[in-house]
């Protein structure tokens, strides 16, 4: 298999690389030179093996499938300074107090 200038432009777009048009013929020649050496793999019978994606002999260690205690997962009451009948109690705002005083 060999690549064309169109292939290089397409792959550059996929890879978000802006290529100087003058450089494309050189890249085509270089990539074809490299890919020619890869063709040897197509002749290898790999029917007896599956593809590997990793090489660690110990495999990837997995943590316990329980998850850590997330500190903020608490009932909302735990965050409130005080509760009454399902509502959070907050201090009266000073501006409201002033308004009350004026209206009185």
């Amino acid at each position, binding site marked *: 298999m060999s690549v064309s200038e169109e292939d290089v432009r397409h792959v550059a777009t996929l890879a978000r*690389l802006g290529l100087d048009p003058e450089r494309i013929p050189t890249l085509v020649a270089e990539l074809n030179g490299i890919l020619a050496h890869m063709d040897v793999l197509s002749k290898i019978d790999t029917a007896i093996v599956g593809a*590997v994606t990793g090489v660690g002999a110990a495999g990837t260690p997995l943590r316990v499938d329980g998850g850590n205690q997330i500190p903020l997962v608490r009932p909302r009451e735990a965050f409130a300074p005080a509760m009454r009948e399902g509502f959070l109690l907050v201090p009266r705002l000073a501006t409201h107090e002033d308004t009350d005083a004026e209206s009185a």
Partner: protein
Amino acid sequence: MTQAELSAAELASRHARGSLRPSDTVKQAFARAADVQAGPSGLNALLSTDRDAALGAADEVVRLQGEGNQPASLVGVPVVVKANIATLNMPTSCGSRILEEYVSPYEATVVTRLRNAGAIIMGKTNMDEFAMGSSTENSAFGPTRNPLDPTRVPGGSSGGSAACVAAGVVRIALGSETGGSVRQPAAFCGIVGVKPTYGRVSRYGLVAFASSLDQVGVFGRTVDDAALGLGAIAGRDRYDSTSADVEVVDYQAVVKGDLKGVTIGRPREYFPESLDARIRDRCDAALERLRALGANVRDVSLPHTGLAIPTYYIIAPAEASSNLARFDGVRYGTRSDAPGLRDMYERTRSQGFGPEVTRRILLGTYVLSAGYYDAYYKKAQEVRALIANDFRRVFDSGVTVLFTPTAPTPAFPLGTKSDPYEMYLSDIFTATANLAGVPALSLPIGRVDGLPVGGQIIGGHFDEATLFRVAYALEQALGEEAHR
């Protein structure tokens, strides 16, 4: 006696006893770096240093000792770190324009572990851009030169770290391996370089090139130095799910064992007809020494070795094209101005990446693209399984370690390898260990035309201890012959 002439263990011991001050050792290391011109105007091995931070760390080590803390293994030992390993106070440029000013907001686990062991981080070292190269000529900051012959390359991609150790600036340095980037420069510079088993060392904070192959490696002036360095950084890390929970033995304690019961395989595929006869002779002489020390030596075969370079140069660029997609001018490093977002991405990346990185991103994107994935990438992953099976079969047959040349040639002159594939062939004897995930080590075994030749020892998964034991025995047996 200068700090460079003392082993890392001896330095740490003197610091712990109080007969040598860590700050004096650090000053000597900086003075040595100036003498050998390790900076940009000379060898160009060191990209950045932080003298004040290093001296502050040396004082801190003394203070901690004064508080009665147990002396750690690398107390006051200066080290340098490859520029793709994250540190807090110096740029992690990866040898690239796109990350030229980039300073990481967090630190690599290996750096934390070195500091916890008492080591002093002196500086960051030059490298092939994003570790893509075998000569350190692909750095955006200019090539590194080999301290033994400045007209020649130090190997790569961790050439800056290797040059610093070879030039006597430090005894221990960190590099990274994807296809031979620690062992090949170790061979070219006449020092020891070890690539641990995949999973032995945390990759947290190592800028990813090819994640299924990458591993942090250690350079040492001697086998003992390398063993001490690896011992400090090895082990499970909860920040890297691919780091293995396998016990780390005290490598220094086991290096001095004998070779009784050790069977060494000489794989015929690593000694092709075309191999420089002088390199073959050096390897065979080393094998003779090992036989004389009590090891059994026998010929073995790893039949898929010849497929390693095509396989590696599909898998590594494929993974790199994905890993390097994150460098787009938005989150990291430099940004080139352009009228729209798409143009900004393209301009940033084309101006930020050098020619070899561009070539590999294109190659990697191509082999992963629709219509070519099965023919290239999937096929390469299958052949990788065959290569890994070769090693498994040989080790299952009773072979303890393999002995091979590290590289097909000694260090070559700067600027002489312009064909990309010719450069890729520098990794022909090293990439197999990365593909199979097994540990391997290079140590000096003599010289050819005055240039160092490296011998490679490859072991079974997580058996770094045996690598060190065989390497130490050979190093002691060769003595000065290893450097003649």
